């Protein structure tokens, strides 16, 4: 592809802290975390064709587990981080097994129900989650002596992981596994008759998506040093799903573009109006009605054909 453009983009992103103030650097970190999160969901929605409405569960679980390990177990970051990722991914494996008992809209309903169960637990299981007060008093790690409490250092740390995650996803979807994953989306029955284990492929995608969601959750909890049950709400699952669909599911760049837009919209709009949920809902309906394939495929269609693709 346009390697030069990609390099320029990366250079611009890396130089961001030199150009703008701390507020925007922190906003940049939040956007990058949202990009990772959206990319992880895109694995399911875009490539496997499985619309999950409960993806906040993995970000939230990871954030809560990391917080709990640090606060209640007094564990250091070096141990807590891998355990968090492992535990969240394992829960993702179980949830995936449950949700993939069904397909289509039942899958969507199951993912929503499962994430609501986790959300309910975060609110009610106060002895572990501290309920509505959330877990606070967390810290950021300091790998190799680099103090990530510094906003710029944290931004570069998140950028590094974002690049790694996007690279892994890019490789994955162009690998044989990625091809078979898209096969299960478009022609599940044919894939099955060709000897592919459709269920297994989908489950692997689900586990992969929950692992990357856990990565986003870890970065999230490091950034905010606080976690509240609202991170598990339907609203946050809907935000990330909107990012994927608005940007363009099944493209690498789409969910990233969508995540940038959703975070910016949330940050700026909530400065002027307090009705973020209404705006989120309205954008959702608008996107579904007007731009069902998302922004990136839409713009790409405009560029290649000079007019909008088929309606």
């Amino acid at each position, binding site marked *: 592809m346009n390697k030069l453009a990609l390099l320029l983009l990366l250079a611009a992103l890396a130089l961001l802290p030199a150009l703008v103030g701390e507020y925007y650097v922190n906003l940049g970190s939040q956007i990058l975390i949202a990009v990772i999160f959206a990319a992880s969901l895109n694995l399911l929605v875009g490539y496997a064709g499985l619309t999950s*409405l409960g993806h906040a569960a993995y970000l939230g679980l990871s954030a809560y587990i990391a917080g709990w390990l640090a606060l209640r177990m007094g564990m250091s970051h070096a141990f807590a981080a891998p355990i968090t990722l492992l535990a969240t991914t394992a829960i993702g494996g179980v949830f995936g097994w*449950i949700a993939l008992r*069904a397909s289509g*809209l039942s899958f969507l309903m199951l993912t929503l129900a*499962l994430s609501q*169960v986790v959300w309910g637990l975060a609110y009610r299981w106060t002895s572990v989650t501290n309920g509505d007060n959330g877990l606070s008093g967390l810290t950021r790690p300091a790998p190799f002596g680099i103090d990530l409490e510094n906003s710029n250092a944290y931004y570069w740390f998140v950028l590094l992981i974002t690049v790694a995650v996007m690279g892994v996803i890019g490789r994955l979807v162009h690998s044989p596994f990625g091809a078979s994953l898209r096969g299960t989306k478009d022609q599940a029955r044919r894939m099955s008759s060709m000897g592919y284990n459709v269920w297994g492929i989908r489950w692997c995608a689900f586990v992969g998506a929950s692992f990357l969601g856990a990565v986003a959750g870890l970065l999230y909890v490091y950034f905010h040093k606080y976690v509240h049950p609202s991170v598990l709400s339907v609203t946050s699952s809907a935000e990330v799903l909107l990012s994927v669909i608005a940007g363009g599911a099944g493209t690498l760049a789409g969910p990233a573009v969508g995540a940038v837009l959703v975070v910016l919209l949330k940050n700026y709009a909530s400065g002027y109006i307090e009705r973020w949920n209404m705006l989120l*809902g309205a*954008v*959702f309906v608008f996107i579904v009605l007007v731009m069902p394939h998302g922004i990136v495929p839409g713009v790409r269609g405009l560029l290649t054909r000079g007019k909008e693709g088929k309606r």
Partner: protein
Amino acid sequence: MQFWLTQTFNSLALGGLLLLLSSGFALIFGLMRIANLTHGALFMIGAYVAASAARAGWGFAAAVVLAALATALLGGLIERLILRRLTGNAQAQVLATLGLSFIAADMCLVLWGGDPIPIAPPGWLAGPVDWFGFSFPSYRIAVIGVSVVAAALLYVLMERTRLGARIRAGVDDMPMARAVGIRASALFTSVFCLGALLAGLGGAVGGPMLSAYPGLDADMLPLALIVVILGGVGSLMGTFLASFIIGFLYTFGTALVPDLAYVILFLPMIVVLAFRPSGLMGGARA
């Protein structure tokens, strides 16, 4: 003993509310293959409308009827104005209902504020009644009665009327139903109205138990989803049965192990999905 008795009636009453909520959801899902995510919001709107009507001096029964009709109208509008434009794309329809549910929840917050609004039950059902030395919650008993009557009417509607026959035909094979002259358009709208009406009725009748508060929609929708998955997607009898199972589990779970009530809810769902993925009474199609 009094504890178990009270909790049993609480369970049955919650089961009754879930029955109203979930049978509407199941009806819409069965015919139109849409998971209507506004269903929790419609339930909440039913509760709010009933609360406002009661405050404005309406009688309780009249307030309930008004709430049910208002949500039915709203359901019809959603189907006609939004979902109709997305015919044939079930996923887009579901996402549209998700967006609408956010808008509706926020509208309720604007219109009715953030404080819970209690709804007083009608005077003659306000207090408990004493029989055989135990006190029985009279309003809970009335809720159970209403939901059982509604379930019976729904059953008769589905099995014994022309509209029910058309709906069943549509659920079985929509193209064939169309070919024999059933108007799908009118059928979809009436089913959506009926489903919304049941949700609104549930919210209004449940008002004195739950009161109307922001977040009621998010509390009820997952329960409806769990009921429908447990009962078998598209099976009315399965939905009836699962409503009461979940009513019992949730009530007793909350009373006995409040921290983990949510996990207990989800256990029967896992067991059913493991052994009968199509639900307790689900057919082959799901």
